[in-house]
């Protein structure tokens, strides 16, 4: 599972670079999230803008990633694409997370 973490503006921005979070990668996603959230800012922002598809196993892995955080840490989401937003809406999980339209509004990306 390909996740990329950068720290800045008091936020641990974790970008999912794969296009799917499904049953075949759910455990790997959760494990990688644990590693990437053990250190760094308490505010974690998961950028899902590259993710076109998620199933209930992937959704469960995101919930598990939030539950396994240390005390005082918070996981927000950003950049839900249409099919991903549909899964969050139908399961009502959209009420559990703070969901931002895009990550760039919180964490300006460095100009390269």
């Amino acid at each position: 599972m390909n996740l990329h973490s950068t720290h800045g503006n008091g936020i641990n921005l974790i970008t999912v670079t794969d296009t799917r979070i499904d049953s075949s990668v759910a455990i790997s996603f959760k494990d990688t999230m644990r590693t990437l959230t053990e250190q760094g800012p308490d505010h974690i922002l998961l950028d899902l803008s590259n993710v076109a598809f998620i199933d209930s196993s992937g959704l469960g892995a995101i919930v598990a990633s939030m539950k396994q955080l240390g005390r005082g840490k918070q996981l927000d989401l950003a950049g839900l694409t249409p099919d991903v937003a549909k899964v969050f809406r139908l399961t009502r999980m959209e009420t559990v997370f703070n969901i931002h339209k895009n990550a760039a509004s919180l964490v300006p990306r460095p100009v390269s």
Partner: protein
Amino acid sequence: MVRSRPPTVVSPVSPPGSLSLQFDGCVADIRGALDSVRSHLAALGLGDERCGAVEIALAEALNNIAEHAFARRPPGPVYLDAEVEGTCLRINLVDLGCPLPGQTLPTGLHHDLDVAPDALPEGGFGWLLIRELTEEVSYIRSGAENRLTLVFSLE
């Protein structure tokens, strides 16, 4: 990167516009089947939103087959037929795995999410998604076969 083997396209004795696939009922082969179905539906002119709804529900049905029907035995074949009938898309799935508990469809009710974060559910959303996204879902156990039918409205 997870490599998913492409499903076998069963030779078309079926009407034009329909699709027949065979693949193993294991998690690794689900992506390939979903890709084939989505490409087929897009080629028929279905829009992204409709294709997405079908893919989500079908993914859940196939996950259930891989994770439950073949949980305690080597994965056997899954036969998938997709056909447009008037204003409906009908997808039939047949496998030779264990029957659904009680040989009936789970209800797929909403979870109570008004709980402490530690108590939030990490699973059990599959049937809820299937029921929300389909017009009709039916299941019968026929001999050693599970026969699941998902019907989507195209209107």
